[in-house]
């Protein structure tokens, strides 16, 4: 019996055409959103567009978001550790941590819930200081916190002046609602990566999704690529 078979090359062409048209469809959708009749919006002149990622708006407030109750760990019980795939555990008490060199940091922050805050002023210890001398082959980090919160990041996103453990905001000790006594500050990623109430970093060879990363939010969270949710 003679059976007809499409040449593979033709199949590939067909698939390519289909894919092309899907792409066009998607581009068309993204190019032509429906106009919201009568919507003007409220644009801010003081928010340069090169500082506000897509889908964000600028606020002067500092909204609070967290998944559970605010923990209140006494400073006497507080410590910060670097653990996991390291040559030896690093640990600082609160006094030891505060004795480390710190620096003022003025950065724009971007919350996945759409607000951005420009020129927020922090004081913190650079992760370069904390990781100085740590010998590791790890490529990933899980930040862990009082209250059980975790978030994951590539190690290279924490080094070379990109991240801090912050203990002051606007010249005042960091309030518990905002993550005090100390929080991670990683301003180039969506702000859920800047874990509140941070107590340590666990270095690992493999990537392990954290709390929001397991609950629908993007694994990396680059605001400039609008990586808000799974699949973005």
């Amino acid at each position: 019996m003679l059976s007809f078979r499409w040449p593979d090359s033709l199949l590939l062409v067909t698939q390519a055409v289909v894919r092309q048209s899907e792409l066009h469809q998607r581009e068309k959708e993204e190019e032509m959103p429906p106009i919201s009749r009568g919507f003007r919006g409220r644009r801010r002149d003081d928010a340069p567009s090169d500082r506000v990622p897509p889908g964000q708006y600028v606020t002067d407030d500092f909204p609070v978001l967290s998944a559970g109750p605010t923990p209140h760990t006494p400073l006497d019980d507080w410590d910060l550790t670097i653990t996991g795939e390291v040559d030896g555990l690093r640990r600082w008490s609160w006094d030891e941590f505060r004795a480390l060199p710190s620096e003022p940091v003025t950065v724009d922050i971007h919350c996945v819930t759409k607000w951005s805050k420009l020129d927020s002023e922090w004081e913190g210890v650079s992760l370069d200081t904390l990781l100085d001398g740590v010998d590791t082959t790890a490529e990933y980090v899980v930040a862990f916190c009082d209250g059980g919160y975790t978030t994951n990041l590539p190690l290279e996103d924490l080094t070379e002046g990109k991240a801090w453990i912050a203990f002051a905001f606007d010249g005042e000790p960091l309030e518990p609602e905002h993550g005090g006594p100390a929080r991670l500050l990683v301003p180039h990623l969506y702000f859920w990566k800047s874990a509140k109430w941070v107590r340590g970093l666990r270095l690992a060879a493999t990537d392990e999704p954290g709390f929001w990363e397991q609950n629908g939010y993007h694994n990396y969270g680059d605001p400039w690529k609008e990586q808000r949710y799974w699949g973005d």
Partner: protein
Amino acid sequence: MEGTAVLGRLNWRAAEVVELTPETSQTKTITFDVPGWPGHRAGQHVDVRLTADDGYQAERSYSIASAADGPRIDLTVERLDDGEVSPYLTDELRTGDVIELRGPVGGYFVWNPHAEGTVFLVAGGSGIVPLMAMARQRALESSRIPTRLLYSARSLDDVIYRDELAELAARVDGFDVVYTLTRTQPAGWDGYGRRVDTDLLREVGPVSSELAVAFVCGPTPFVEAVASGLVELGHEPARIKTERFGPTGG
């Protein structure tokens, strides 16, 4: 396939306004028809995107008020007088208008029908919205999970979904509502008339051994007070799930 749907990108979908229902002086429910809506879990939210004729866009997140039931979803929006998006949604939208939304989003602050014990819902103001989705989902599924709603509002006129909450409580299937009116109380009011504090939570809420999970939603000071009050009463922090409605943006 469900797995594919979850992992796929949440694309913007055209959503047509099919009904507008004023709830209180400051809130309105907008019912959208969203062809292809994949369903949602009670407590989840959507992102809404508006586009001006010159291409300027604004996005905000809103909790879904309705239970998952076909291609229609309700958003109940509180009008923030200085907001950029909410006054448009509450004042300008007409039936037949099409805006964009994508979702559902969020996998933590969601109704879990398998929880054992009493579910305690604590709402401050428009924080009732995602909790209403849970109450509706519960009713839709004929669930008998013991569920108590403590709802704090400024006045009786500020209570959203009052008639429907009364109907849900009248089913006598394990759901009930306790109100506290913090600013004005009508003559003969026999409910609470003060802000939610630890004592009120002790009087109204389940004891810690009976709490399955608490969902707390409202403005930040409200959520802080309720969540820390529940911790003070001995509830496990991991059983207290919070969601905050900030005063900004809207």
